[in-house]
């Protein structure tokens, strides 16, 4: 099995995410696109750690070889979950304040 | 013990002074503190001989190889003495001046004194830098809180200037630190730092600019007249009497011995800058109508002469510089006392509005004229001894091919100094009594006391300077020989 498929898939996901962030104004959609990008990275991490890990120097380590990348992914998922809760809370607050989730209204830092 | 005391006394009394709310008592407190400091300094100078009293070392920041290490040698002695003499004089002379929030004012003054003491005795680069900044911060607050109408703008300029200088110095010191044997901030380690001649070149400019801003040397001087003009006079006295000496001290202690090759090589350039600055400042001083600005520019010219002498690397001249550091401090404080009193009484510092004061205040006239004559280095005043030695040093210098030119051009400033100083006297004291002067009285006991001490010092050093010259005998020989005897330079000289 070639890794190229995975790479192409995750690049495609990532690009969709970027384009979404750049073009959309709805905060929730931007948020989802960010998640999409995160998951593209996750996919890549899992793929690489499964297929391109080093041969372990000692035999007893063979069982855990190639798992470090996957552990990263778990971390990312946990952090992403926390981030979603904070991010959604922010969006809710934003909606309460300006009755909109359009990010273009939020340019007050400029002044 | 002595150097630690010299720092601690003003530091602690200064901190206490913040909490003394009564104006009279805080004045007395500050004066008492400064007199004790003076006593300690005098004891260190005369009674004690054992070297263990003059050096001290405590652990400070072990991981950086920096220690709280202080020592008093001849150069430190004379500057500490100046610092210790200056503050009682300042406090006595401005006894009658009223300050808002006097407790903060005097506390900051004492802290500034502590900082400057620290600069003069530090034997560790990090400690030196620490005190350098410590002296600067109270000065900043003193100018910005108690200064004249343009104080905010001017203090900002002052701060930016000195801060830029400090940062350049910090970079330079750190770079040298990384090239010392065994990575230490100790001064001996700095003297033995392994630096190529290229590195010395650019380090030299980093440090020189830092010190030149403080002294100040043309063209880094424009903070000075503004700051002197706008600061309360007591602060101006401390700034011009003592703090500018930090720059000269920096050259002598942290530049010449640390970067000898570069000092040798760039001597002509710096001397040229200083000489140009001298003439420049003298010509501008002639044009001034404000007493404070006039004295400020005259100070630039005098300090410039010290700079030229330092880079002429001559033992005789070096002694002249060191005694002149003291003389200039004393004399300029005397001039400021006169200026302060005039401003307080007459409500103006403009020469064009003054005149005929000698008829109203003969005592002030006598003192002021003597001090002004010392300012133009008349024989039998202290400045003559200093300037004579300095000029001898410049003329006999082996470090430059242009010694004759430097002597002549610097000598022209003696003439110009006579022009502006005599004009100053003429416009303030002689002629007919002007409207501003008509209600003036004569100086009171406190000013008489301060000015009297200054005049006695002026005449004493002018006639018999030996006790003062002996203090700095060894250190000046060390500094000059340390450079002249470098193998590279010695080889060049014999060729």
């Amino acid at each position, binding site marked *: 099995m070639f890794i190229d498929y995975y790479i192409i898939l995750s690049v495609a996901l990532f690009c969709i995410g970027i384009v979404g962030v750049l073009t959309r104004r709805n905060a929730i959609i*931007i948020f989802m696109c960010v998640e999409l990008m995160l998951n593209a990275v996750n996919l890549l991490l899992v793929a690489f750690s499964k297929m391109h890990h080093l041969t372990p120097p000692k035999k007893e380590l063979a069982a855990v070889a190639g798992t470090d990348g996957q552990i990263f992914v778990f971390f990312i998922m946990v952090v992403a979950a926390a981030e979603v809760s904070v991010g959604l809370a922010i969006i809710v607050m934003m909606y309460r304040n300006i009755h909109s989730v359009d990010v273009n209204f939020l340019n007050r830092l400029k*002044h | 013990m002595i150097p630690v005391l010299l720092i601690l006394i003003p530091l602690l009394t200064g901190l206490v002074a913040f909490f003394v709310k009564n104006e009279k008592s805080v004045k007395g407190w500050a004066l008492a503190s400064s007199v004790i400091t003076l006593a300690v300094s005098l004891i260190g100078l005369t009674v004690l001989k054992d070297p263990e009293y003059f050096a001290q070392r405590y652990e400070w920041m072990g991981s950086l190889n920096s220690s709280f290490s202080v020592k008093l040698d001849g150069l430190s002695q004379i500057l500490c003495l100046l610092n210790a003499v200056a503050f009682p004089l300042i406090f006595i002379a401005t006894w009658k001046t009223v300050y808002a929030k006097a407790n903060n004012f005097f506390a900051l003054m004492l802290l500034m004194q502590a900082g400057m003491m620290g600069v003069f005795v530090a034997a560790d680069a990090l400690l030196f830098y620490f005190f350098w900044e410590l002296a600067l911060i109270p000065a900043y607050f003193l100018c910005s809180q108690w200064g004249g109408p343009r104080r905010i703008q001017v203090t900002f300029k002052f701060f930016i200037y000195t801060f830029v200088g400090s940062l350049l110095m910090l970079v330079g010191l750190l770079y040298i630190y990384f090239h010392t044997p065994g990575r230490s901030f100790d001064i001996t380690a700095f003297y033995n730092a392994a630096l190529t001649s290229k590195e010395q070149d650019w380090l030299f400019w980093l440090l020189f600019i830092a010190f030149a801003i403080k002294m100040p040397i043309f063209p880094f001087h424009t903070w000075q007249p503004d700051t002197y003009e706008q600061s309360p006079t007591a602060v101006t006295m401390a700034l011009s009497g003592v703090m500018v000496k930090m720059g000269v001290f920096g050259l002598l202690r942290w530049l010449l011995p640390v970067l000898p090759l570069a000092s040798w090589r760039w001597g002509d350039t710096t001397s040229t800058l200083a000489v140009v600055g001298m003439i420049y400042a003298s010509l501008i001083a002639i044009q001034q109508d404000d007493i404070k600005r006039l004295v400020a520019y005259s100070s630039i010219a005098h300090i410039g002469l010290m700079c030229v002498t330092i880079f002429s690397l001559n033992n005789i001249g070096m002694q002249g510089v060191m005694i002149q550091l003291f003389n200039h401090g004393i004399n300029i404080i005397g001039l400021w006392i006169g200026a302060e009193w005039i401003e307080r009484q007459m409500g103006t510092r403009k020469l064009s509005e003054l005149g005929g004061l000698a008829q109203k205040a003969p005592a002030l006239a006598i003192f002021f004229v003597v001090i002004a004559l010392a300012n133009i280095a008349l024989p*039998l005043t202290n400045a003559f001894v200093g300037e004579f030695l300095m000029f001898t040093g410049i003329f006999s210098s082996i470090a430059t091919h242009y010694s004759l030119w430097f002597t002549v051009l610097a000598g022209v400033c*003696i003439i110009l100094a006579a022009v502006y100083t*005599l004009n100053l006297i*003429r416009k303030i004291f*002689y002629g007919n009594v002007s409207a501003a002067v008509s209600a003036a009285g004569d100086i009171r006991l406190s000013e008489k006391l301060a000015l009297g001490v200054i005049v006695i010092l002026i005449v004493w050093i002018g006639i018999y300077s030996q006790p003062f010259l002996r203090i700095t005998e060894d250190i000046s020989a060390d500094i000059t020989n340390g450079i002249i005897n470098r193998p590279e330079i010695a080889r060049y000289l014999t060729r």
Partner: protein
Amino acid sequence: MQNSLQIAWLIPLFPLIGFLINGLGRKQLSKSMIGVIGSGVILASFVMSIWVFLQVKDGNTHVATYFDFINAGKLKISFAFQIDQLSSLFLLIITGVGFLIHVYSVAYMHEEKTEHFGRYFSYLNLFVFSMLLLVLGANYVIMFIGWEGVGLCSYLLIGFWFKKDEYNKAANKAFIMNRIGDLGFLIAIFWIISKAGSVNFPDVFAAATGKFNGKEFTTTDITCITLLLFVGATGKSAQIPLYTWLPDAMAGPTPVSALIHAATMVTAGIYMVARSNILYSMSHLVMNVVWVIGLATAILAATIALKQNDIKKVLAYSTVSQLGFMFLALGTGAYVAAVFHVMTHAFFKALLFLGSGSVIHAMGGEQDIRKMGGLNKRMKITSMTFLLGCLAIAGIPGFSGFFSKDAILAGAFGRSPVIYAIALGAALLTAFYMFRLYATVFRGTFRGTHDQEHHLHESPSAMTVPLIILAILSVVGGWIGIPEFMASGANKLNEFLAPVFASSNQFLESRGRLHEIDHNTEWMLTGLSSLLIILVVVFAWNKFSRKPELAETKGLGRVLENKWYVDELYDTIIVKPLNWLGGVLNSVVEKDVIDGLVNGVGRAVNYGSRQLRLLQSGQVANYVLLMVLSMLVVFVLQFFLRK
């Protein structure tokens, strides 16, 4: 055993004590006390000086060292006095003439308030102290202390009446002009130190003639040192180009003009050159410069004196001119003649100034000679003594000025007859303007106001007695230097001073630059000059007794009256440009260039940040876009740069 002359420190100490007492007690002491103290200390010095002189006459010369003035590194300058023939002679002149002038001042200044009276005497004492330091100093630095000290006192006394701004400006001018000269002196000292390592006279002269501690002056060294010293002398002794301060210095009280600006201080330059005679003898070039300057000054000042109408200004220019004569003598190697003329000049010029003071006193402060006239009837003593002074300065045979001037002219003839002719011309001018002055002031009829005429009186005896003593000295003072050709062995002064100039004369002789004139020629020259001078005197006497010069001058006379416009010239080429430069530096360079640069840095940072702020649009999308683009740039850069 210690030399008895070690005690010479007492001589300057007395005036110093007088200065301190009078200065500090000027409000407490009474006028008579101040006068007694002020004059008494000078008398004490005078008595000491006579004793010293007698010691020296017996061949006892001494260098008395007291303490280290400056001792730094290899440089050691001791506070030491040199007592020899030259300095003891000057001591006598300074304290002797000084004492007479102090006594005179007591009467002249009696109208001043007590505290100003005290101030006056303290300054005068301080002056004598400085002048004594100057001549006693055993090295160039101690000499320089006195040198600047007398300049200071001159400054203080010119501006004594400090309410008048004009006087203060004259005082400043005197000090600054002197400072210009002093710079030359100072650089000469530095030069000496750097080449010889010592400033003691014997050491320096040893370094010039042979070896001193293995150090030796090159010819260039000697030329430069002597030239620089001479610059100092031109300042102090009012020679071209630094002479313009002296006439302005007449703003001071008249006794001050007599003491400082005629008899003593202005001769400091001559003393200094005479002291360094061996250095000058060794530099032919500088000798030439000295006599050229001296001669030019003598002529220039004499021409200006022809048309001055202020009694003191005439005397001032005459002083400048006589000083020129002295330098002419020095430049031609006639050192003794110069010192001789210093002495006789001190007598008759002090006399003339004090006489003019007496006149001014009687006229109620009037100094314009056009408003005087006929004073000889009312002021017999002043008139008689003034006449004797005029005869002496003109060089009428038998009077003191005759002998000293003759010695100078003989020296000039020895060098070249042309110099002699020009110098004789200057001497004739001297005779002319002095008798113009005398005739205008004392002969004819009175031309002042009625009030002044009523007020006219002879001065009190405290003023006339010094006049009489000085008049006697002006007559007989020259008899100690009667030239060899008139009476063999009568030139006592020459004999006395011989040791000081011995090595110099030896050197000049070895180079064939010492010219002896035979006695017949000398008789002829003396006869010629005396005859001409007498003719001029008679002519001037007649011309101005009958019809004094009262009308406005025109043409050349006007140029002379305005002093050849030299002051204006200096103002245009030096003072104004410097002021302009200072103004430009102050208002343009300082404010715009340097501060502009500094503020410019601040402004540039400000501007830059304002531009950068535009990036902060507040649009999240913009930020993200920027982020992505930057990442792309980083990738691309890395991709290309790795290759």
